[in-house]
């Protein structure tokens, strides 16, 4: 086999596998969300379909597919159809540049090892928000419209802070490639950037909550005020797309947090910080990455069932008046540190 066919073949294989695994993870994140929320509220959660309710995502999917795909008469048809796809696709595309393992059988465990990985993720992840804004516009009724407006207000308040918060990370690493970010963090016990840049981590985490529309920043959805917000007019499979999009987005942001701050697929002992040479270690690396990602996902879910919602002027206040200055200060302090060290 010549290198080109090999590359195409293995890439296609990886894409198919990653997509399947990702969608499974997304489906089960919904299940975990329901379970965790139930446990926090002293309930037991879904436990009827299969052992411990493990077949619940399957049942939900079947239900969503079989329901009537109803389109209200007053919506703007084209945008109405477009919005769910725009929400869903970017979060799936983001995963493409995340290194989810070192190597497995000589293949690098990343779909596309871009040397501007992080710029790509930022460019793509933000697109998901447009789906929500578009859904609010397309629905042509009041609650979705409010949701869309809130979403646009939200996106301009956290997006800047989010971008600024990761700049110190790349000043330290000196590269935008996510694989080299992980390589940088593989050095020693406190190599992870969460220890070197705790402020950046905190800002990124909070912006991540806003990015994924999770509580305490779920203004576009706001069930209690907007009866579901941007997705009020949606039903059946299109609603399921929004739902999956939200969770896929969560997975994508968790993967980014793990890659940028929590050392990616590395662990600082048993030599697990080095790229794998054997098949088994390669699998272990993927396992480590998934475990870290699940931990972050669990934290996202946990926080959702604890905090009340911010008002959206409070979010803008937080974004512009607190996070942007802090992030800028962090950039300058890191620059001074690097300048003194050089």
């Amino acid at each position, binding site marked *: 086999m010549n290198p080109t066919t090999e590359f195409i073949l293995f890439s296609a294989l990886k894409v198919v596998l990653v997509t399947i695994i990702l969608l499974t993870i997304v489906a089960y994140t919904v299940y975990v969300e329901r379970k965790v929320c139930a446990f*926090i509220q002293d*309930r*037991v959660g879904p436990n009827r379909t299969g052992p411990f309710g493990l077949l619940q995502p399957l049942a939900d999917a079947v239900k969503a597919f079989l329901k009537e795909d109803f389109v209200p008469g007053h919506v703007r048809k084209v945008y109405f159809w477009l919005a769910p796809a725009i929400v869903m696709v970017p979060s799936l595309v983001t995963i493409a540049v995340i290194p989810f393992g070192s190597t497995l059988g000589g293949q690098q465990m990343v779909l596309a090892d871009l040397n501007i990985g992080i710029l790509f993720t930022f460019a793509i992840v933000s697109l998901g928000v447009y789906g929500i804004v578009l859904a609010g516009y397309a629905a042509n009724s009041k609650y979705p419209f409010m949701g869309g407006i809130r979403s646009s207000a939200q996106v301009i308040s956290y997006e800047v802070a989010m971008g600024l918060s990761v700049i110190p990370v790349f000043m330290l690493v000196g590269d935008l490639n996510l694989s080299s970010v992980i390589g940088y963090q593989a050095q020693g016990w406190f190599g992870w950037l969460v220890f070197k840049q705790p402020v950046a981590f905190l800002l990124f985490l909070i912006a991540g909550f806003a990015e994924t529309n999770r509580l305490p920043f779920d203004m576009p959805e706001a069930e209690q005020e907007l009866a579901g917000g941007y997705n009020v007019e949606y039903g059946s499979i299109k609603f399921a797309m929004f739902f999956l999009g939200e969770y896929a987005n969560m997975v994508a942001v968790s993967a980014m947090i793990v890659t940028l701050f929590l050392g990616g697929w590395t662990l600082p002992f048993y030599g697990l910080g080095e790229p794998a040479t054997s098949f088994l270690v390669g699998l272990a690396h993927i396992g480590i990455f998934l475990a870290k990602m699940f931990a972050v996902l669990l934290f996202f879910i946990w926080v959702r069932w604890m905090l009340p919602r911010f008002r959206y002027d409070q979010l803008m206040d937080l974004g512009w008046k607190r996070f942007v200055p802090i992030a800028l200060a962090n950039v300058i302090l890191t620059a001074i540190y690097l300048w003194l060290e050089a």
Partner: protein
Amino acid sequence: MIVPRRKLSFLERLYLPAILSGLRVTLRHFFRRKVTMQYPEERWVVPEGYRGAPYLVRDQHGDTKCVSCQLCEFVCPPRAIRIVPPGPDGPPADRPNAEKMPKEFEINMLRCIFCGFCQEVCPEEAIFLQQDYSLTGLARGEMIYDKEKLLDLGGIHQDRHLKWQRKHAEAESQKVSPPS
């Protein structure tokens, strides 16, 4: 009136300690014993005097107590009860010297509001609101309970008076038993 607001301290304005204590609260609840009752398998204890579905009862000798006086049919606010009395040529009661008994007795459980007026008005203690609170059926017709079904569901009521039996004994002793 102006309520003076206390200035928040730096830590309080930072939000983060409050968030951490919130996480502690939710974590505590996560491991707490769950309060969910697995409904169809586990059921709550129905309290004494609960007003569930009204059923007809038999006395301890297995006799139908209802004498089809139709008071319950008359008093029923949603008109859920329908009684067909035997009429002058109808079949006699299933025990000697007794009043007539209903030919048909239906309660439409879709209409019944479980008010208990039927139980209250019944001069024969023949109908009681019992403990069933979840009546289900696949069709409307199934929810109209007929006499046999009501008697089966109602069970036995230990009657202390046994009015008809005593009347029968009294008539026997005076040798004026009516032709039955």
